[in-house]
């Protein structure tokens, strides 16, 4: 039982409020990713869970135990630090063994645990090296091994892959997912990379300025954002958010106080300048740049409503001037003046068609 609950957590550094009334539940055995822009309080939140920072107010529960003021070493949590924080004077073996000695584990058991763990993470040949003799990826594995060997109730990882190159990062990402499957322990993983969050987490918590923006599964996060912030954070490229005022000419009448209209880059189509479409927002546009990524192509287009991205999976378009982009009505997302999502909306299609209320939500 290692469900983690943060109840009304506030953290201030002097007068700076870094985390503001955070409430969240991290389910037992889940792989929860905390994601958000730099400086939004991810590390601070993680460090409070680990006990390296004390919240200004609020409570932290692990399972059915309130750990708010418990020492870090007693919480049965293992942490993997962003820069690994290996003990530089000790060999890999000693690094892994250190916590076990503190727990008074017998020598023979320690040795077999080290053997087992170093097999799993592929460090067996490096046990007698010092951290400075290892590559970044190997150090990463030592940090993981040191955390794993303690068999903690909760693993917390603070941007553990950010120092690795793209290829190794991909590999470690898959290894971590497998590791989580095998151990079944709760993982709390911090990253500022939404791709990492989407690909690894089964629950994502999106933070901004110390406030939860959305707590959801990756698919919901992507398809059903709560607000403009989430919509603009998730996705490569993220959702295009346009001011409704720029679209009045092409939108049907909306019976709600809509301030922003959004659509996903892959939901827009690029059509010839003369073509017409029913039940679509159609904008005369100009293609500014074309990024061909192999399977997909990302266009940056400019039109009356501003600049926006379009992602297509067909062959790249040559014509750049006389084109239109068309977005189906049911793929539009609507947001109010507070940038909150309006989920159910009536569209008046009278001019020129008959009125017909439609549910939209981009789903």
């Amino acid at each position: 039982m290692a469900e983690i609950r943060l109840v009304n957590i506030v953290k201030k550094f002097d007068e700076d409020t870094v985390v503001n009334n955070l409430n969240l539940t991290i389910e037992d055995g889940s792989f929860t990713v905390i994601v958000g822009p730099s400086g939004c309080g991810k590390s601070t939140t993680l460090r409070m869970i680990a006990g390296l920072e004390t919240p200004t107010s609020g409570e932290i529960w692990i399972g059915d135990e309130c750990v708010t003021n418990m020492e870090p070493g007693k919480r049965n949590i293992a942490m993997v630090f962003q820069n690994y924080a290996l003990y530089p004077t000790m060999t890999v073996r000693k690094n892994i063994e250190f916590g076990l000695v503190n727990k008074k584990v017998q020598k023979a058991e320690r040795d077999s645990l080290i053997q087992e763990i170093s097999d799993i993470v592929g460090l067996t040949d490096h046990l007698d090296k010092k951290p400075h003799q290892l590559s970044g990826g190997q150090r990463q594995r030592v940090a993981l091994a040191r955390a794993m060997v303690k068999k903690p109730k909760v693993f917390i990882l603070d941007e553990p892959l950010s120092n690795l190159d793209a290829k190794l990062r991909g590999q470690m990402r898959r290894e971590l997912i497998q590791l989580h499957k095998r151990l079944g322990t709760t993982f709390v993983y911090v990253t500022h990379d939404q791709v990492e969050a989407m690909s690894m987490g089964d629950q994502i918590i999106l933070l901004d300025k110390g406030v939860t923006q959305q707590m959801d599964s990756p698919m919901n996060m992507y398809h059903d954002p709560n607000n403009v912030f989430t919509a603009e954070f998730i996705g490569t490229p993220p959702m295009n958010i346009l001011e409704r005022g720029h679209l009045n000419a092409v939108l049907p009448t909306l019976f709600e106080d809509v301030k922003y209209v959004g659509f996903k880059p892959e939901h827009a189509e690029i059509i010839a300048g003369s073509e017409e479409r029913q039940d679509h927002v159609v904008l005369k546009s100009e293609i500014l740049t074309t990024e061909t990524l192999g399977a997909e192509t990302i266009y940056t287009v400019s039109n009356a409503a501003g600049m926006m991205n379009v992602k297509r999976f067909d062959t790249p378009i040559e014509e750049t001037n006389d084109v239109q982009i068309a977005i189906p009505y049911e793929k539009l997302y609507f947001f109010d003046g507070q940038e909150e999502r309006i989920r159910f909306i009536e569209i008046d299609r009278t001019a020129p068609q008959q009125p017909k209320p439609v549910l939209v939500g981009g789903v």
Partner: protein
Amino acid sequence: MTLANSNETLHRKREQSALSALNWVAVRPYMMIFPAIIVFTLFFLYPIGYMIYLSFHDWNFVSPDKDYVGFSNFTALLQDAKFQQVLRNTFMYSFATVSLTISISLLLALWLNKKGAMYGFVQGAIFSPHIISLVSISMLWMWIMDTDYGLLNWFLNLFGISNIPWLTDPKTSLLSLIIVAVWKGIGYYTLIFIAGLQSIPKDIYEAAALDDTSKVRTFFKLTLPMLSPTLFFLTIIGLIGSFQVFETISIMTKGGPINSTNTIVYYIYENGFRFFKIGYASTAGVILLLVVGVFTIIYFKLLSRKVHYQS
């Protein structure tokens, strides 16, 4: 003159200039270090050489003759019971001073390595002796350690301890000098230790906290190994400095009472400038040079291995 001929001279000229250019390239580095070489020779090599030369002679400082005596200065010195005591005093003084200074400074550094006005003030206060001249320090401590009117004995009297003749009893005189040296040294040592402590990354302590490590084990397994370069540096420069102690002895005890605080440098001074046995003094100088040299070599040898350095 034919065309071929003139061509040949041209060729030769070019070759010559190429040769001189080559010479210049080879000579240039020596030219550039020449001034430094002059200074080094004049002020380092020559005095050392002259000291070694004098150690094989008998000279009274004024006589025009220096009599060559071979190794007899060395044999006399090494059999000299007084010199043996001088060596013992010097080693005692050095090892005690350095080990005490290092232990006290390390404890102070662990305590002072925090933010806050009070810690800054204490740090400044204990550093201040470092910038006071040794002459003033010696005068000050002669008064503090005075048997009848000294502050130290007055203070001890408060606890019912009777007067201790700090500087005038051979049993306590060397200890007194060690106290003065430690008092002067801790400020500087503490400062260096604090710098060393601050260069240890915070997150390894956090990792240790998550590993449920006790304070004592954290100190011995993390802090101390991480400090080992600092520790080693301070030990060696401390020893080398202490071997050459002179001012406090010359002012406070003049090597006495009954030779109990006489150390190598003071012994050299005494023989050279009070007894005018220049050859004998130079011989002691050579021995000091050897001792310091050995420690310097150990320093550089060990520096390259054994001691942990962050990469």
